[in-house]
């Protein structure tokens, strides 16, 4: 990730520009959220007037059914997909395959992991956990007539050859949406490869999937967010392509899809929206900078989170979507170092939200499953901790005992489980107070 951190830093050399730009970006997202219901209605009306069809889904199941119904009406059996994190939320590929429809990822990284039956480990670079040897072996095994090569250009060439045929033959294309502008009813898709354009313009039907939060009020909100997104994500001043889709093929056009469908998915977002503080989660433009800069993510990797969205944004989003009962552990996968907060281009206060969610997990609140993360052992431990830290004599006694006898604590109970995969921590031989006193620093 060091490479990406460096590339991003090069793109924001001027701190004043960075501050002004992200303030604009945050303002555009916050304004869109403040007017969300009205903007969604305006977006729907504009898109319909432009000739698109608009569908709404409360759950991922409903969204899958909407997509299936559209495909069945056209008798579509082969679908090509551009990158879409919403489709990952829906597990759309598995759903379509179970209904006998081929759903092929065409972003190179997504294509690679789909061949290996995996999920993305990063929202921008889905196959970042694989090296070229693994990809070379995978292509050699899974792609007919592909010779073994570890050359990146040749591997890319193999994927190009296979996927070009698939684009040509596809009955429908599915994509995500980066921004949807209510003012004009335009869908913005950002990409480097061209697979998104292939998926949205070659097949006769295009289905775009978006979360309800993706809407922007005005066209002029796009340029600051576009530059924030590409610079934050991959350190590029701009992506190779910005694909702006406002309408299906008009009567005199010679190509482009004859039908464009927009599926607007809620999937717990309207619940997150209800709380003004938690709502800031929905500002996210999915740049992935928080992951690239996270000391936890860069060590454990994206799959360790066992969630669609890994890294800091996943740590605040997943527990809110799936509930704190099962996912409150994610809120603790952070040292609260604040690196993500510093780089977030839309100023999401990730650390504060993590603390809020930790608190709700044990003490109750508005988030789904609030209070269900409470355990008696943990509550008891912290109650004791609080006592000790509130009383200087108790603190002195306990810290003296810990430094003298701590190494004899046997690994039983929770400590045993904990040490099965970790080294047991060692106490210092003297307390910090003792050590500083020896250095000549008087007690206060």
């Amino acid at each position, binding site marked *: 990730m060091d*490479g990406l951190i460096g590339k991003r830093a090069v793109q924001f050399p001027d701190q004043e*520009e960075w501050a*002004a*730009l992200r*303030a*604009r970006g945050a*303002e555009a*997202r*916050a*304004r869109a959220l403040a007017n*969300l*219901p009205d903007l*969604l209605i305006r977006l729907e009306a504009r898109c319909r007037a*432009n000739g698109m069809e608009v569908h*709404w889904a*409360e759950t991922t199941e*409903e969204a899958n059914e*909407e997509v299936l119904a559209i495909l069945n009406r056209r008798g579509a059996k082969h679908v090509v997909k551009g990158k879409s994190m919403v489709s990952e939320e829906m597990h759309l590929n598995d759903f379509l395959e179970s209904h006998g429809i081929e759903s092929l990822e065409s972003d*190179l*990284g997504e294509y*690679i992991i789909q061949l290996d039956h995996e999920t993305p480990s990063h929202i921008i*670079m889905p*196959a970042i956990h694989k*090296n*070229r040897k693994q*990809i070379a072996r995978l292509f050699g095994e899974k792609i007919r007539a592909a010779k073994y090569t570890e050359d*990146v250009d040749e591997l*890319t060439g193999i*994927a*190009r050859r296979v*996927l*070009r045929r698939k*684009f*040509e033959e596809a009955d429908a294309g599915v994509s995500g949406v980066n921004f949807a502008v209510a*003012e004009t009813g335009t869908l913005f898709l950002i990409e*480097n490869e*061209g697979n998104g*354009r*292939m998926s949205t*313009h070659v097949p006769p039907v295009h289905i775009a999937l978006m979360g309800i939060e993706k809407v922007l009020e005005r*066209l002029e909100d796009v*340029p600051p967010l576009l*530059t924030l997104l590409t610079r934050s994500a991959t350190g590029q*001043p*701009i992506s*190779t*392509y*910005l694909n*702006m889709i*406002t*309408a299906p093929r*008009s009567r005199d*056009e*010679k*190509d482009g899809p004859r039908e464009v469908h927009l599926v607007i998915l*809620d999937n717990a977002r*309207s619940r997150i929206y*209800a709380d*003004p503080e938690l*709502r800031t989660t929905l500002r996210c433009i999915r740049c992935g900078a928080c992951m690239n800069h996270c000391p936890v993510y860069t060590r454990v990797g994206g799959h360790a989170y066992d969630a669609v969205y890994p890294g800091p944004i996943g740590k605040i989003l997943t527990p809110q979507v799936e509930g704190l009962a099962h996912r409150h552990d994610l809120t603790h996968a952070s040292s609260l170092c604040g690196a993500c907060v510093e780089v977030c281009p839309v100023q999401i206060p990730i650390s504060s939200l993590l603390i809020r969610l930790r608190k709700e997990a044990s003490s109750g609140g508005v988030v789904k499953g609030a209070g269900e993360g409470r355990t008696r052992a943990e509550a008891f431990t912290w109650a004791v901790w609080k006592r000790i830290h509130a009383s200087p004599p108790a603190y002195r006694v306990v810290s003296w005992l810990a430094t003298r006898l701590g190494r004899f604590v046997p690994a039983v109970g929770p400590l045993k489980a904990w040490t099965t995969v970790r080294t047991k921590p060692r106490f210092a031989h003297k307390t910090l107070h003792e050590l500083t006193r020896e250095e000549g620093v008087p007690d206060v």
Partner: protein
Amino acid sequence: MSETARGRILERLRSASVGAQRAERGAQVKQPKRSRDERVVRLRTMMEAVRTEFLEADRESWPSTVLAFLVSIGAKRVLHGANLFSVAPPDSAAVELVPYDKPIEEWKTDMFSNIDAAITTTRGGIAETGTLILWPSPDEPRLMSLVPPVHVALLDTNKIHDTFADVMRDENWAAGMPPNALLISGPSKTADIEQTLAYGVHGPKRLIVVLVS
């Protein structure tokens, strides 16, 4: 299903709208003001950094410049918009010029397999990021700048704007967007394998900008 889902989602959003947070609008981002020549240089520098190639020509000579280039790279069949040439282009035995004059359904395989390059015009450029602006039209359809492995784009050097925000505002895009609009800032590329940059993954492998002045 759809109508009731719509109603329930909007109702939940509406009931939550009280206490909506609004962020302060940040200061205007400083914008460089460049002269026409500086804009050309900036666009070229930015695009060359991502492997875009450049040719220079004037309003009369560009067809021969472009054809000479196409011959030099061995392009045999070259796609162009129906109204690209105001006068008949110079005859070339080596290059067959194919106008895009029928719906894609009638020749999809031919386009994917047998077209070596395409020539399109552009609506303008953006200096700041090194970007071409294309508004595909019935004359110059959407796939021309995507499917052929080589894309030759004509750019009028008088139509290079400073920033994306400038061109949106100056041309009042909000008043009416075309069915499809594109910003193109180089040949197709990817870094999905070990973060190693590779060009020509799905779209054109080469992008050649012809600066017409």
